[in-house]
Structure formats: structure tokens, C-alpha cells
């Protein structure tokens, strides 16, 4: 393609690119905001927006005074005079206080008094010091020396993992021996599994998610084989029923099953939630795998049978290995689904909170601890995100198998 033609093509497609990129940006901004926020200090989270982290110059103390007295000569960023670069830490460290700055200002510069051509400082030393103190602070900010509110921290993550709910942060409380924190925490590595924290919730989530996923796969594969390659009375009818069951709202089962679990002493047990999730995962899982196994070539099963294989052998040696793609997508789908579940875990496993439930436990009713929630939320995203990006193709495949091709 000639350069000009390529250029024309690019321009004619510019609106398309802009629309695609704009939508991507819109989609990613909310998550990006939370991600940035999760590394900001408690004070920063509650006082300024997350985007201020990226602004080169935060609104700082002393900016009006600096503008009034210094901008005309030194410029807004302090770099206008190369010989007196106010954004250089070396220069700024020469006058650590307003008094030392005043002494310097009283000295003639290039044979003339400082501030000659701009607004003069008040002549009374007390008044001029009052104006200079904020300027010193501002110079420190300019040079990157001052109290930086945009400093990033990992304390939100630490607080979330241990389940800290105090007014400072876990690590500094432990360092300063704060009594209220010492009463709840051991201040050593064992706090990672504190029952109120995300660390413990992560373990609970894994205990819920992994066995459920395996159970669903095994039981669904068995049933799917029967629906695809075995003959029994009422096969069509039963499979149609299965399609109906796919969309029964989970809410239908909550109350009766909760009452049944109380009778069987199964409330808040892992066994109870494994079985519940498995029961509700099965209709879709069987449907998905059956569609896949059913589309395998019939001749293959026939020749296996002629070679003396029975159904069990055909299931284990042919159907199961060959339907691995479908099983993989089902596994990923089921894993992410159970990982993100809130309602079932809230009702059936309240004494062993999983990640989603623990996040809501961490919420302070007065809204004082958003900073911890940001860390907690991102911790809960970590595993599904990794699974999602690592197995995206399989995940998509699992979605499609259930819908596009019936």
C-alpha cells in the first residue's frame, strides 16, 4: 500500500478507532480507579480523588503565597531562573525554615534587593515570616521533599488481609503497641489467618471452590455420557426437564434447604455448601458436556465396542479424554462462578466467611474504612483475574457451548 493510501485509510477509519478505544477506556476506568485507590493512604482515599495520584503538582499549602511573591521571577514551577532553581532539593535545603529564608532574601542579589521588581514582602519581620512559612512548605513540595500526600502504600492490603478495623493502620498500631489492636491481634505472621481477615477468607474460598468444581465435573461428565451414548426410557423427556431446571432461580431453594440443614446439623459446614453449589451447577454442566460428547463421531464408539470395550471403558478411555476442552471450559466457568458467589455463601457458610462475604463484613457502617475495602476487593479479584486471562479462550468457549450452538 502506498504511504498516501495508507494515510487516507487510517483517516477514514479514525472514528472507528476512536469509538473502540473510547469504549475500552470507559470500561477500564472504574477498575483502574479502584486499583490506584487501593495503594493510596487512608487519608488520601478519604480526602482526594484517585486521579490526583497522577497529577504532578498536588494542591499544596502555600501555593497562593508563592504565586503572589515568587511566580513573577521563578515561574510557576520554580524553574524559570536556572541559577536559582527552586525545584532543586539542594537549593531548597539551604533554607529549612522561614527565618533562614528571610535572611537570604534580605541579602542583595546581583547588587539589588531581592523582590525588588515584584510584590515587596511586608516590612515587619513578624508579618513577613507569616507569609514565608507557607512558601517554605510549598518549596519543599515543589522539590519533592515535603509531606507527600500522594505517597503509595501497601497498608490497605495488609489491613485487609488481617482484617484490621481500627483508625490508623495495622502495622503502625503494632509498632506503637496500641492497646486496642494488641487485644485483637498477635502482631506476628499468625494474624494472616485471623478469622476476620481476607487471608482466612481466601482459604475458605479455596476450600469451597475447588471441591465444588471437581464434584460438578465428575458428576456431570457421568450423566452427560448417559444422555449422549446410552439408551434409556424417558431420555428426551429427562433432558428437556434438565433444560428447564437450568433457569430455576437459586432463591427457590434457599429457605427449604436452610431448614433441612438445620435439622441435619449441616448449617455452616463446607459439605453443605459443596453439595448446594454442585446441585445448582449440574443442569448447565450436564447440558454443556452432553453437547460436546454427543458431537464426537459415533463410529469411534462403535469400533471401540466391537473391540470388546464396555461402556465404562468407552467413557473412561474415549469420552472423558476427548471431551477435555469442554471439561476445561466448564471447570473455569464453574470455578469463577462459585468464587464470586455471595448469596449462597452468606446463607449457608456464615461462620466461615468466603472472600465476598468477608468484604461485606469489613464494611464499616459509618463509611470510615473505604481504604481497606479497596485492598480487600482487589485481593478477591486476584485469582479469578489470573484464571480469566490465562484461560480466556476456554472460558469463552464454555459460554458459547451453552448458547450459540444448541
Amino acid at each position: 500500500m502506498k504511504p498516501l493510501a495508507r494515510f487516507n485509510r487510517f483517516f477514514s477509519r479514525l472514528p472507528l478507532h476512536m469509538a473502540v478505544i473510547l469504549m475500552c477506556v470507559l470500561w477500564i476506568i472504574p477498575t483502574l480507579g479502584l486499583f490506584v485507590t487501593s495503594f493510596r493512604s487512608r487519608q488520601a482515599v478519604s480526602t482526594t480523588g484517585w486521579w490526583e495520584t497522577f497529577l504532578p503538582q498536588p494542591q499544596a499549602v502555600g501555593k497562593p503565597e508563592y504565586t503572589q511573591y515568587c511566580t513573577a521571577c521563578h515561574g510557576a514551577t520554580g524553574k524559570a531562573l536556572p541559577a536559582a532553581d527552586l525545584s532543586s532539593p539542594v537549593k531548597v535545603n539551604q533554607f529549612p525554615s522561614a527565618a533562614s529564608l528571610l535572611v537570604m532574601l534580605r541579602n542583595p542579589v546581583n547588587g539589588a534587593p531581592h523582590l525588588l521588581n515584584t510584590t515587596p514582602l511586608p516590612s515587619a519581620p513578624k508579618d513577613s515570616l507569616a507569609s514565608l512559612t507557607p512558601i517554605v512548605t510549598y518549596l519543599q513540595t515543589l522539590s519533592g521533599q515535603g509531606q507527600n500526600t500522594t505517597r503509595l502504600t501497601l497498608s490497605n492490603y495488609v489491613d485487609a488481609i488481617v482484617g484490621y478495623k481500627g483508625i490508623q493502620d495495622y502495622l503502625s498500631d503494632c509498632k506503637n503497641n496500641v492497646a486496642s489492636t494488641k487485644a485483637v491481634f498477635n502482631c506476628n505472621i499468625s494474624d494472616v489467618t485471623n478469622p476476620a481477615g481476607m487471608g482466612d477468607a481466601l482459604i475458605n474460598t479455596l476450600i469451597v471452590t475447588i471441591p465444588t468444581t471437581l464434584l460438578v465435573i465428575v458428576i456431570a461428565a457421568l450423566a452427560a455420557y448417559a444422555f449422549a451414548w446410552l439408551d434409556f426410557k424417558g431420555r428426551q423427556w429427562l433432558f428437556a426437564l434438565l433444560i428447564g431446571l437450568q433457569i430455576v432461580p437459586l432463591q427457590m431453594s434457599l429457605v427449604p434447604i436452610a431448614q433441612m440443614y438445620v435439622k441435619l446439623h449441616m448449617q455452616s459446614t463446607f459439605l453443605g455448601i459443596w453439595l448446594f453449589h454442585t446441585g445448582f451447577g449440574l443442569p448447565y454442566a450436564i447440558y454443556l458436556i452432553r453437547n460436546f460428547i454427543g458431537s464426537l463421531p459415533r463410529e469411534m464408539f462403535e469400533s471401540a465396542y466391537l473391540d470388546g470395550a464396555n461402556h465404562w471403558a468407552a467413557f473412561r478411555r474415549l469420552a472423558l479424554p476427548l471431551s477435555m476442552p469442554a471439561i476445561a471450559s466448564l471447570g473455569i466457568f464453574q470455578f469463577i462462578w462459585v468464587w464470586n458467589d455471595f448469596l449462597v455463601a452468606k446463607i449457608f457458610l456464615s461462620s466461615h466467611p468466603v472472600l465476598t462475604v468477608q468484604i461485606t463484613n469489613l464494611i464499616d457502617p459509618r463509611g470510615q474504612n473505604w481504604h481497606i475495602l479497596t485492598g480487600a476487593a482487589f485481593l478477591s479479584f486476584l485469582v479469578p483475574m489470573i484464571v480469566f486471562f490465562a484461560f480466556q479462550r476456554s472460558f469463552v468457549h464454555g459460554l458459547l457451548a451453552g448458547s450459540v450452538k444448541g
Partner: protein
Amino acid sequence: MVPRIMKQGRLAPWFYLLPALVLMTIFIVYPTIGTFRLSLLGATSTQSAATTCTAGQPCWGILENYRYALTNPDMLLALRNNALWLLLMVPGTIAGGLFFALLADRVRYENVAKAIIFMPTAISFIGAGIIWRFVYDVESGGGPQIGLLNAIIVGLGGKAVTWLSDPAINNFSLMVVGVWLWAGFCMTILSAAIKGVNTEILEASRVDGANEWQVFWEILFPSIQTTIVVVTTTMAIIILKIFDVVFVMTDGNFGTEVIANRMFTLIVTNAGQSTAIAVILIILTIPIMIFNIQRFRKEEAAR
């Protein structure tokens, strides 16, 4: 169809099916019947719902819980909101997903762009609620706005909006979160359908002078119609059951109540009313259920 040659015992299939059938019976079929029964009983499931009637008030006898589910102001609000969610969010996610699938189909970085839109599908509703709090936050004390939307509005000289507590707009604020979460799901499925359309037909009609608009409506859209129907029914089911987004962002306050959240709120305090709401929920899904089974029957017949 099962090959004739593969003989089997009469009982064999049931060994394969047994674990699945037992679990589905215990966790889906039996509780569904149980829920119907409980919905006719009182708050603690010990006596008939008819006994909860108060003298001088309207009473539906044994269906008293349904009187609550269909006439209580909270429930009417929830029903209205669910209808609103269905009417706006189903077309919203599908149109958004389809639009993006069509656009992304024409650029080279399609996979990256689609992954970005699809990513929220992997995020929990609870996490999404926290993400969006930082978009919708409002600072009423006079300090700087830390919510993104209000910071933009105030920055442009406007007045901060209470996105989540203003009954005139908060339902729409929640639906935006829903679209953000689910448009990627619709896009993925629709995009696969678009890829399956024969490109030669599309090219031929373009050569014949059809513009993109005509190509879409006259060729592409009819070709992916089945998929659109599937996505529509799937989304309708998801939205009928919508719960987590509302629970975590407003807990149904300020006029954002939905059916599933009402059911959850009552689950501890009044099992009768809670299960009656669950029954309403399943009755609403029955038409979709029948539709899906009929579609399956048709596909099986065509195999």
C-alpha cells in the same frame, strides 16, 4: 442417536445418572416444592398463612403471603423496578454488546479490546459494588469530590449529584453498573455469531451497492437473530434474579428495591413472605423455561 450395536444393561444408564439426579432432586426439585408449601405458611412455618391475617384488614386466607407479595408497597416498588431493569437493561446490554462486537470486528487489536470489555464478567458483584462506589461517591460537606463523576461535574461548574440516593436517577445508576458487568457477556456470544456469518454474502451485497446500515439490517441481523434470542432469554433470567448489585450498593434503599433483595431481606424474619416472593420469581421465569425447552426440541428434531 445411540448406536444400536452398543448394547447395555437396562440399569446401566441409571448408574451414570444417579449422582446427578439425586443431587438435582435434593437441591432443586424438592426445595421448589418445599418453597410452594412454605409460602402457604406463616412467618415461622408453623401454622397456616391464614392465621396471620389481622381483623378488619383485607385477607387472602391461605394465600395471605401472596397478598403481601403482590400488594405491599415495598413489593410493588420491587416489581416495578424489576420491570424497569428488564425493559432497559436487556436491550442495553445486548445493544451495547452487539455494537461493540461489530466495531471490534473491524480493528486489528480486536482481542485486546474484547478482553477489556469482557473482564468485568470475572469480577464478583460485591467487588463491582466497591469499584462503582468510587465512581458515584458524593461529597456533601464542601470538600473536594472524590467520586469520579461528581468531580467531573463540579469541575465543569455543575452541582454534585447524589447518584445512589436520588430516587429519580439511582435505579439508572445501578443499571449502568449492570451494563458494565454484563455487556461483555453479550458481546462475546454475539461476536462469535457474527464471525459465523458467511463473509462472502456480506461482501457480495456491499459490491451490489448496499450501505453498511442495509448490510446490517438485511443480512447480518437476520443471520444472528437466533443468537440474539438466546442472549435475550439468558439476560432476562439473570436480570429477573438481580440481587447482588442492589444489595451491595444501596441495599434496596431510596426506592431501588428489587424482588430478589426483598426475598433475601425477609429470609430470616418471615419465611412465609420470603418464599411467596420466590414463587413469584419462578412463575415469572416459566415462560422463558417453556420457550427454551421448545427451542431445544426443535433443534433436536433438526439434527
